[in-house]
């Protein structure tokens, strides 16, 4: 891990400066620090492990290749997530490999737990994820991403606004809309044990 002469671990800003000069260990350290956050966001967005890894990989290569465009106004993580966000939305648009529950009418067919998923027995993690992914998939990609950035990464409204290039008010509206929609898509009352 790149360290300053005093032994103090470099902050992202210093690592970015080093990476701009072609310092590969600095690039690797930036990757190591932010890969998990990028993966979580991409995975929630795409619902598929391999697609999420692809989005992280492509996003990171783009980020490092365009470091001169990084103004430093927001942190490197926000900037990287912005790139991964775009990569994930593109990938989702192209591949449409989001797990599907075979739902029909979007607005009038709330997702029910599968019949074999007896709430009394408790749902396993894969079942729960399948149910949630199905509901998330019914949100528009941008609204879905707003919700994911907030719920998964606990980003501030300002950070989400920067990543999505929208006003803060839009972020808050999307969050409110997403929660209302998710509540209507999910039969949350039927899921007793979590």
């Amino acid at each position, binding site marked *: 891990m790149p360290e300053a002469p005093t032994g103090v671990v470099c902050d992202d800003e210093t690592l970015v400066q080093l990476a*701009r*000069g*072609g310092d*590969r260990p600095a*690039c*690797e350290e930036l*990757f*190591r620090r932010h*890969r*998990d956050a990028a*993966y*979580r966001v991409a*995975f*929630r967005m795409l619902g598929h*492990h391999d697609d*999420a*890894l692809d989005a*992280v*990989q492509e996003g*990171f*290569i783009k980020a*490092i*290749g365009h470091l*001169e465009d990084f103004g430093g106004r927001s942190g490197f993580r926000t900037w990287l997530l912005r790139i991964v966000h775009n990569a994930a939305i593109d990938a989702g648009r192209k591949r449409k490999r989001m797990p599907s529950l075979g739902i029909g009418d979007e607005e009038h067919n709330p997702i029910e737990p599968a019949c074999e998923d007896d709430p009394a027995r408790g749902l396993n*993690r894969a079942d*729960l*994820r399948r*149910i*949630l992914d199905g509901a998330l998939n019914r949100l528009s990609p941008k609204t879905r991403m707003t919700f994911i950035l907030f*719920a*998964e990464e606990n980003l501030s*409204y300002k950070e989400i606004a920067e990543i999505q290039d929208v006003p803060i008010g839009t*972020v*808050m*509206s999307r*969050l*409110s809309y*997403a*929660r*209302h929609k*998710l*509540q209507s898509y*999910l039969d*949350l*009352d039927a*899921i007793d044990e*979590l």
Partner: protein
Amino acid sequence: MRCVDVTRELSAPTGDRQSSALAQHLAACPQCAAWAARDMKLNQLWDATRPVEPSTEVWNEVWTEISARLDRPDVLPFREAPTIRPGRRILMITLGVAQAAAILLAVFFFTRAPGGPQPDATVHQPVRPVDGAPPSSVAQSDSDPLDIDPDGSLVVLRIEAPGKVEKTEVALNDNSGRVDSGFEMLNFLESAAKQ
């Protein structure tokens, strides 16, 4: 507090979640209380389905791939972006404008100088017929005359042999692409200013 304000505050908190008004509303409004309970369930569902992060081995493989891609010259030029201080930028612009002005002045004086081209005196001056050749509008003088082609290009006329006139187009730059001369001049001034 209205119901819509309560659900909005629960969805996208502004920090008033703990306010007594919100608590009072939730205690008195079964609809909002049910909404809040479902919202909490949604949060629990979210927490229960958090992605399992890839193992270190998987990440190492991804990094190996990234590192290999970064080695490709088309992916990573790793060039330092040139930084120009504001003062230097102003100096460069001023020099560019001065260069352009000097060139314009030189062109102006060249065309007005006594030994320089005198379009009015030479163009359209009839040429004495040689060996019975019909008169032409080409001037025959010691200095090569200028003319303007039908397409608007400035040309130098040179009599190579009796009855044979060679036209050479005058261009500030290589203008083989037949770009409009005015545009070419503007281009030249712009590039001079940028240097």
